[in-house]
């Protein structure tokens, strides 16, 4: 039965290496005293680097494929449960980059919080393994295991500040709602399995194609769709399934808030795209109206709630909810009745740029955490420009990028999505979305105002560790460079747009 060969393991190598290093960090940590915990960070970093090398190896295989003049086809492993295509490779890189930047930004923050433990880094690595399974899974079981591995690791990371009540409360809320949503999701998956008799995404897609044939009762497929979608909407924090996000974001250690909001979100999107495009494709006529409703609710809820927040982390929690709404518009445009690949491309570009700019934002907030100053209230940012001009300018860059102001990376995410909406004839949605973009400019401006136009309440200097500098430099440079010269990044996204060439999906998109 086990027809596994070497290629299977090569495809799983990025995940295997990460697991190995995560276990290694757990053991090394036992030997380290309090002052040398930074070695854990280096070990985790090495794990990410090795994993990236393994991903690069897979990427080379795709290049070989192209060099031989073959059409790009995904690699399958482990009896078709793991499907590594270019789409997955793109997300692998994204997760690894996000995790690396998060680790850079974490060391000093954890020392200040006095919670510097090796488990932190091990859990980040484990959650990346889970994310990779979500991005490359071709089987409901693997996708679900990946989701849970990611989620459980994140639950613990959210509550990592054991002595902080907010952190504990956030972790508990996140755990309860997360478990609840996983249950709903699993219920949906079991119905899909019941309909198709298989956990393989392609087989499910075929079975749903038959079930959706005209004249058949669609009750069970509809219930399966709704429960699966509800579970997924929980994970990406779309309104009305978003209530956990502000609490979890506020309570979590700031570095983890950043990590959750980019890598966690990107992985949930990878999962959502896998399921909606690969498995639920034939149900497009049913789910597009749901997506429209949820997207409008998400943009409205996220943007309006963000307007009045006084806590920066909460504000960015709502802002990230709003961004989910925009990304969802890309899916609507990509799968609607006049479908086009620009929608899906927009999602990938959006997730790419969002990774850098949002991590940057949380990096700046994390660097404000000093002894006795939590630094996550809006007032704590007052006069930051006069205390730490470089950080304030970086933060301004990230804010403007989030608001979608052109010379910066964030614009391109919105650009592709709005373009796709217009191409597919969704003028009303496009107009609504741009109005909300303008609304969002207001709350980003509130943050900018505090930094540049108010006077500081305290004179405690902001000191920044080398790791944080590196993290901020990477995110800041990426935000500016992608904005001014997006060509190589767009080429990367186009390369990974293999998802649109997959036979099942191509049929859906044409």
């Amino acid at each position, binding site marked *: 039965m086990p027809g596994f060969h070497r290629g299977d393991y090569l495809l799983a190598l990025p995940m295997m290496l990460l697991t190995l290093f995560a276990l290694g960090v757990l053991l090394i940590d036992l030997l380290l005293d309090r002052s040398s915990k930074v070695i854990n960070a280096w070990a985790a970093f090495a794990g990410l680097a090795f994993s990236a090398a393994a991903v690069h190896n897979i990427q080379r295989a795709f290049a070989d494929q192209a060099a031989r003049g073959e059409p790009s086809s995904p690699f399958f492993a482990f009896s078709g449960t793991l499907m590594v295509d270019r789409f997955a490779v793109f997300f692998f890189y994204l997760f690894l980059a996000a995790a690396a930047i998060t680790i850079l930004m974490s060391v000093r923050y954890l020392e200040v919080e006095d919670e510097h433990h090796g488990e932190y880094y091990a859990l980040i690595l484990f959650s990346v393994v889970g994310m990779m399974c979500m991005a490359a899974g071709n089987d409901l079981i693997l996708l679900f295991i990946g989701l849970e591995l990611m989620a459980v690791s994140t639950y613990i990371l959210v509550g990592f500040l054991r002595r902080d009540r907010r952190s504990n409360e956030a972790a508990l809320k996140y755990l309860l709602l997360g478990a609840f949503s996983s249950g709903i999701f699993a219920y949906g998956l079991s119905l899909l399995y019941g309909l198709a008799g298989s956990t393989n995404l392609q087989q499910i897609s075929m079975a749903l194609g038959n079930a959706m044939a005209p004249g058949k009762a669609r009750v069970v497929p509809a219930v399966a769709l709704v429960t699966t979608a509800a579970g997924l909407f929980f994970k990406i924090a779309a309104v009305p399934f978003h209530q956990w996000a502000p609490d979890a974001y506020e309570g979590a250690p700031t570095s983890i808030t950043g990590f959750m909001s980019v890598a966690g979100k990107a992985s949930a999107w990878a999962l959502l795209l896998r399921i909606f495009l690969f498995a639920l494709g034939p149900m497009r006529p049913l789910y597009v109206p749901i997506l429209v409703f949820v997207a409008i609710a998400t943009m409205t809820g996220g943007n309006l709630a963000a307007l009045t927040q006084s806590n920066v982390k909460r504000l960015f929690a709502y802002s990230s909810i709003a961004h989910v709404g925009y990304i969802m518009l890309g899916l609507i445009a990509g799968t609607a009745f006049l479908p086009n690949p620009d929608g899906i491309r927009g999602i990938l570009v959006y997730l790419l740029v969002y990774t850098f700019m949002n991590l940057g934002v949380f990096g700046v907030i994390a660097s404000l955490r000093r002894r006795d100053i939590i630094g996550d209230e809006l007032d704590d940012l007052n006069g930051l420009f006069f205390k730490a001009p470089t950080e304030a300018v970086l933060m301004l860059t990230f804010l403007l990028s989030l608001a979608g*102001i*052109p010379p910066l990376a964030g614009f391109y995410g919105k650009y592709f999505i709005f373009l796709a909406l217009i191409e597919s004839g969704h003028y009303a949605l496009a107009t609504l979305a741009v109005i909300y973009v303008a609304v969002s400019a207001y709350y980003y401006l509130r943050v900018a105002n505090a930094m540049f136009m108010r006077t500081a309440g305290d004179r405690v200097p902001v000191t920044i560790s080398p790791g944080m500098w590196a993290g901020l430099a990477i995110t800041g440079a990426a935000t500016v460079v992608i904005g001014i010269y997006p060509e190589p990044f767009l080429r990367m996204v186009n390369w990974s747009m293999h998802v649109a060439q997959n036979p099942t999906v191509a049929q859906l998109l044409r």
Partner: protein
Amino acid sequence: MTPTAIISIVTFLPLAGGIILLALPRGAENAVRRWALFVTVLEFFAAAHIAFMPGHHFSMSGWAMEENYAWISTPAIRYHVVLDGISLWLVILTAFLTPLCVLISWRSVHDRVKEFFFLLLVLETALTGVFVAFDLFLFYFFWEATLIPMALLIGMYGHGRRIYASVKFFLYTAVASVFMLVAILWLYAHTGSFDFTVIQPWLRSHPEVAAGNAGLWLFLGFFIAFAVKVPIFPLHTWLPDAHVEAPTAGSVLLAGVLLKMGTYGLLRFCVGLFPEAARAQAGWINVLAIIGIIYGALVAMVQPSLKKLVAYSSVSHLGFVVLGIFTFTAAGTAGAVYQMLNHGVSTGALFILVGMLYERRHTFEISEFGGLASRMPVYAAFFVFITLSSIGLPLLNGFVGEFLVLSGAFRDRAIYGILGASGVIWSACYMLWMVQRVFYGENRNPANALLPDASAREKLTLWPLSAMALIMGVAPMIWLSSINPPVEQILKNVAPASHMAYVAGGQK
């Protein structure tokens, strides 16, 4: 069409200067000021010499100069910049006003000097970019890029309610410009290009789009963005706040150049791309323009604050520009372009003058002043001269623009001309009344007794402006000869032949 690098040089020279400026040490404030002045003066000469460059005929139709490179392949975004008779003078106006802004900020800005001049230089690059960009994406890029330095200038260096004013300014323009973005994306989705020189012929060859419903919505998408910027009544409410709270240099560039982005956009894109829709909608736009002229003048009259008065006078003057553009007559539209330049010089000068008073007394209240003419004779002379130029005294610049606009308006519809002309009278009323209250009569306020007259630096700021007001009043053909061809080019698509009867030069 001559390929050249001068446009890029003029566009990015201030930015390069600004980046070098950042490298100057923090304490060296005078070095920062001198460097900023040097860069902006250099920029002025670089920009002004284009007008005299041999081999480029701005008096002929067509784009005089361009640079066109691929920037991003998908989406197809090009770095396409063009100078023609309209954009050339707006670029020169920007380059003319910025060094003056540096001069007037010499003393009045003493905190965070480096950042101030850096923002000013970035703003200059963004403004220049707006006027030369011919790729719609590039245009939007520069358009939004002007927002940030301006908002920061107001918010960091402004007066009392600066944060409120800065946010209001930012939000008004940001909200409005997203509609333009939707329209631009629609055009890209249908033409596969952002390039003006591709989109315009495409629209010409697809009359069902340009003259249909789509054309109307696209026109409105662009229009709303420009209308807020101009600002056209009733979207003007951000303007008084922004002006009153902005530092003097900010006000000068805001009134002198930023508002022109709106009118320039109306002419170049709204009328240039959608002539059918523009003609169909001209009626209510002209009515709004006239309301703006009269409303702005009436509100200016009752302002207790000097700066607010000048701000509302801008609303009134920009009404003339909009009226001129939407008469679709060669006289009116060329006059509108001329009026843009006039307004930049006159209102820029007025803000500078008001700023000088503020530096001395730290108030804008008209009632605080009186009888200043005897204390500050040189200053008063400049002020009166600029006031006369602003209200359109013959032989000064304001007259030429207003006259052309009104003659165009009469040609279009007599009632526009009659109502518009009343605006000239109103402006004489509020400006002269203000001059009377500030400079003549009894000085009852002891604080005014020891005010120093204009210093050498201030005179250096005011002389170029006054000279320019005079030259533009007596020799408008220098400007009009190169403004007319592109204007005619634009109007060719929009106006019936009878409106083209005007012969350049015959009207003076």
